[in-house]
């Protein structure tokens, strides 16, 4: 009876993984297709669509823009997250809980509403452009970085900081010479995670991008709304898959991806 239950569970698990990963695998396979239009399975292998991608101005500029936005917002998000986590880890009880809720709030808040709110806000004060998007992504990426840095600090032995202070190191030197060198994997992972989140982010970018400064997902979305020449999107997707694999493996080596499991 229990064995039957286990078999059932495993079967459903297999189906689930197929449903989750299948479509993406199809896309990656098709991106190497030599055909002119979408055919599955691909008749032959070719890199033509990757070439097309890199030759398409709007695609490459969107890709570079996404990288720029991602890197900038990730760095800022990580700095803010580290400041916040450093403070929160020293607090007890109510303050700690409140601050943690504040700094992780953007995670659960519907991004669409955030995007709209920021758009209106920027309009009112006549601000906007790439800067506006970057700041929005700092807000969105910060909770992820915060959680990772906080986890690192929680397993950090605080008496090390006291030892440094007892030897004459002030707060700054203590942080840069003792704390940071020990928690840097958590900090770096936080930054990488914030970058990944920013790169793939859609809902806020929908409102805050515009002609001349589109992120890659927005550019892809635009493309997909009209039929035709969609294989270039497959190439773009595969590139993102490759990038995410590299970054995810890096994070795994640094802090162990599975530990971040909780959403």
């Amino acid at each position, binding site marked *: 009876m229990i064995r039957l239950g286990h078999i059932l569970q495993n079967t459903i698990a297999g189906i689930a993984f197929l449903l989750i990963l299948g479509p993406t695998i199809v*896309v990656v396979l098709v991106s190497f297709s030599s055909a002119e239009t979408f055919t599955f399975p691909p008749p032959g292998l070719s890199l033509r669509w990757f070439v097309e991608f890199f030759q398409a101005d709007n695609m490459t500029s969107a890709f570079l823009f996404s990288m720029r936005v991602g890197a900038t917002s990730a760095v800022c998000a990580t700095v803010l997250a580290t400041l916040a986590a450093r403070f929160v880890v020293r607090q007890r009880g109510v303050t700690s809980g409140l601050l943690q809720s504040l700094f992780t709030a953007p995670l659960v808040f519907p991004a669409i509403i955030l995007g709209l709110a920021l758009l209106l806000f920027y309009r009112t004060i006549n601000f906007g452009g790439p800067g506006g998007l970057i700041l929005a992504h700092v807000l969105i990426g910060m909770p992820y970085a915060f959680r990772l840095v906080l986890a690192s600090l929680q397993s950090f032995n605080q008496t090390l900081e006291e030892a440094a202070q007892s030897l004459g190191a002030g707060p700054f030197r203590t942080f840069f010479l003792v704390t940071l060198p020990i928690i840097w994997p958590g900090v770096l992972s936080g930054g990488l995670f914030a970058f990944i989140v920013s790169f793939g982010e859609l809902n806020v970018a929908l409102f805050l991008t515009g002609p001349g400064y589109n992120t890659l997902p927005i550019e892809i979305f635009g493309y997909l709304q009209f039929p035709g020449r969609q294989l270039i999107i497959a190439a773009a997707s595969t590139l993102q898959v490759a990038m995410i694999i590299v970054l995810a493996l890096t994070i795994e080596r640094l802090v162990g991806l599975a530990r971040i499991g909780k959403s």
Partner: protein
Amino acid sequence: MPSSSIAADGSPLGDLLRQLRSWSLVALPILFFLIFFAGPLLYLFVVSLLEPSQTELYGTNVTLQNYAKVLGDEFYLRIIQRTLLVGALVTGIALLIAYPVAMAIARMTPRWRIIAMIALMFPLMLSNVVRAYGWIAVLGRQGVVNTVLTQAEIIDAPLALLYSIEAVVLGLMTILLPYMIISIANSLTGLDRSYAEAAQSLGAGPLRTFIHVTWPLSSPGVAAGMQLVFFLTLSAYVTIALLGGPRFSLLVSMVYRSAMAFQWTFSAALAFVLLGVALGVGALIMLVLRPGRVQGRG
């Protein structure tokens, strides 16, 4: 050694100054959150209560007409209904599939569990547009399904599988499934096995152990997963647009469209109705599942 010039020890002023100085560390993040998170949201809420204007962003009079328009018009009510339906379907089906998968994961050895978790987290890091495109590749006219069915000569002409509520539910469900699985799996792996063993020692078979022990104790993970999946469904404009087509509108589509049409006050009201739906369903989930009765980890 330098000594301080501040007077009496333990003075309240000295303590206060020291407290303030220690908070200076976190001042920047808090300020950032106030200016770019809390501030704009409050602003949007206020705007939702103002009358629309043709010339300015919004008028000056406070009014409930925006909300009245949303909640009074049958058109919008039907859209809200459809949104709730899609949300319920996506969340419900995800739960049904995720729970057995989570149980399977909880049974794995730590090494395989980590691999499974990574395999689940990986697609979450891809942009939703790429995953939606994956379903276009599978369900489209020249997609995998149609190709296979045509080649197997089960059908003559390709089926229009996209641009339907089924496609939207399927796409969203699979995109958000990892969240649900991870949430429930975390809950289940955190469960102390001795609870189930105690139940069995008291005479409960596998089914009753599940009903009376496993399920209630996993309710925090289930509740968190359901809330997350539902919230994300509400926001998933791109997926809905791509898989549902231009004539398939949910509440989020209305928010986007009215904003692009510069109907600020109306889109603000729509946004907060969306938020209200999210919070309402979230509260409902908490009420039904009552995860609060599970205090602390297993």
